[in-house]
């Protein structure tokens, strides 16, 4: 995972609520067994249905930050959705609220989930619609989103921030506790099922 410090880029506005992961990455692309190359499939059905969909508009093609409505990423746990957004070029998603599994999946791959207030999201959305080229800076160390005439702070738990800033993957971190895992295993009740005993 690539460490995150400061993200600077333009915004792509997607003013819809409850965008589910079936829309972000339609199921037809979940049959791939690869980990990469999902960018071209992101929002495939919406892009196909509407030539004016934000990701079809050249002025938003190089956006690094997606600004969107509440409960973003609801539904299916498919990590293919954040893979696709990241592969498309997004480095951060800014919204009022995320679905839990989606947010978790983002922090595992270094796609920064940023939660701002409803008002702040609305302000950025208007800005993005008015001026596709405007540059916004997201600082992870400062937990801030700034652009000319706008500054907001966001909350992220210190542990996740540390992990993202250092690009650390969880497996390596958990494997430091192998002794504790083995200790725990020794105390598990013997009635618990194992697939070898049925």
């Amino acid at each position, binding site marked *: 995972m690539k460490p995150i410090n400061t993200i600077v880029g333009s915004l792509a506005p997607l*003013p*819809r*609520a*409850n965008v*589910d992961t*079936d*829309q972000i990455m*339609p*199921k*037809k692309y*979940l*049959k*791939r*067994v*690869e*980990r990469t190359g999902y960018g071209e499939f992101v929002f495939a*059905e919406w892009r196909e249905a509407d030539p004016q969909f934000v990701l079809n508009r050249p002025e938003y093609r190089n956006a690094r930050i997606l600004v969107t*409505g*509440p*409960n973003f990423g*609801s*539904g*299916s*746990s*498919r*990590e*293919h959705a*954040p893979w696709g957004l990241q592969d498309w070029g997004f480095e951060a998603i800014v919204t009022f*609220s*995320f*679905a*839990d*599994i989606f947010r*978790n*999946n983002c922090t*595992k*791959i270094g796609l920064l989930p940023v939660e701002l207030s409803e008002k702040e999201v609305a302000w950025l959305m208007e800005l993005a619609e008015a001026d596709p080229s405007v540059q916004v800076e997201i600082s992870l160390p400062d937990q801030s989103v700034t652009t000319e005439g706008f500054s907001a702070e966001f909350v992220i*738990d210190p*542990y996740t921030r540390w992990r993202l800033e250092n690009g650390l*993957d*969880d*497996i390596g*971190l*958990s*494997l430091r*506790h*192998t002794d*504790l*895992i083995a200790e*725990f*295993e020794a105390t*598990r009740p*013997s*009635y*618990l*099922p*194992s*697939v*070898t005993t*049925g």
Partner: protein
Amino acid sequence: MTARTLFEKVWENHLVRHSPGEPDLLYVDMHLVHEVTSPQAFDSLRMQGRTVRRPDLTLATIDHGVPTLNRHLGITDPMSRIQIDALVRNCEEFGVKLFGLDDPRSGIVHIIGPEQGITQPGMLIVCGDSHTSTHGALGALAFGIGTSEVEHVLATQTLPQDRPHSMAVTVEGDLPTGVTAKDIILGVIAQIGTGGASGHVIEYRGSTISGLSMEGRMTICNMSIEGGARAGMIAPDDITFAYVEGRPFAPRGSAWEAALEEWRQLSTDPNADFDTELFFQANRLEPYVSWGTNPGQTIPVTAAIPHPDQAENPTERDSIERALAYMDLVGGTPITEVEIDRVFLGSCTNGRIEDLRAAASIVEGRQLAEHVSAMVVPGSGLVKLQAETEGLDRIFKEAGFEWRDAGCSMCLGMNPDILNPGERCASTSNRNFEGRQGPGGRTHLVSPAMAAAAAIAGHFVDVREWN
């Protein structure tokens, strides 16, 4: 000792490591794996030179991409075949047990766990699938994870997680006739919305919930994720214990007695506090039908489809307008006037034997409406066998339904079972998202009884008035 909720007890029983300011490290009792969300996790293990820490606590099945017709011909979709072959190979290489396609025990991952007795009270279960919440019906803490987390569990048998908040959803009183577990959960989601339980683990409680069968409880916990919850749980009781006892992977003899003693502790202490509490009266619930493009867009069968003018804010107005346009519906139309083209009976929400019995009792001796085609897809090979033993397959077939092999099928259309663009489907599944059952397809979520009645009538009907 502090009074604790069921969720807190199960969480704390699985704490490998707790350190302030860090996520808790939890031990996973059973990791369920399927073909769609696992190949990249196995690849990464291979690249890192890591192994599966506990193959004995890992079970794989093939469900999302399998055809439900002519399975003896093999998997004809080349991409699904590659994905399924990858799972078979990965299981062989890493020593993971797989219920293969030719195994009668195979089926939808969330059906077979409880069916085999692999899901037991008090366990912590994860799977790379959001409907893992189903297993909470037995008093397990079970939740969906992404592929990076699948890899983490394969490598360590643990998962770092921030502790969610707790929510009580209490339902009291006798369920009116014709109102089912599916209607309870649709009614709850219609009220709280698809993000209403975000960051929470729900415990469903109250006399209505304790009166439900295990199948009904699984339907409710299954759809917790559609309200945004991390998981759903129901305290295990005698109904749970009777369900688990004697199943292939259930403890036996003295182990059973030891387990039972522990399982009886798994309920919320009388003075325990929940972060959020919601109350519902069973007698105010009705059969529900979703009209829009998320499970929160759901109304009682007696209601009319919402009009954009009813919206409370511009965002909601936009959502209603978009959903009406996608669903090709007009606000203000009674939902019972909406005609359907297809019916899908099945899924991890409603693909269990009791669901098929409920639908068959409506269908028996009748014929599908002329313009409707319908399919029944049992949740597992064993559900299919059981239904055939009871003669349910004959009832469906005589009424004009197709009787298929087990799998996820048209719940998400990753196999050949999909809606054609513009087709409208009464579905017992869990998601009515745009394109969920096929690009351009229109999904209405209902209970098995409501789906069966709609299949016969050709449009939605109030199953309470069915005779």
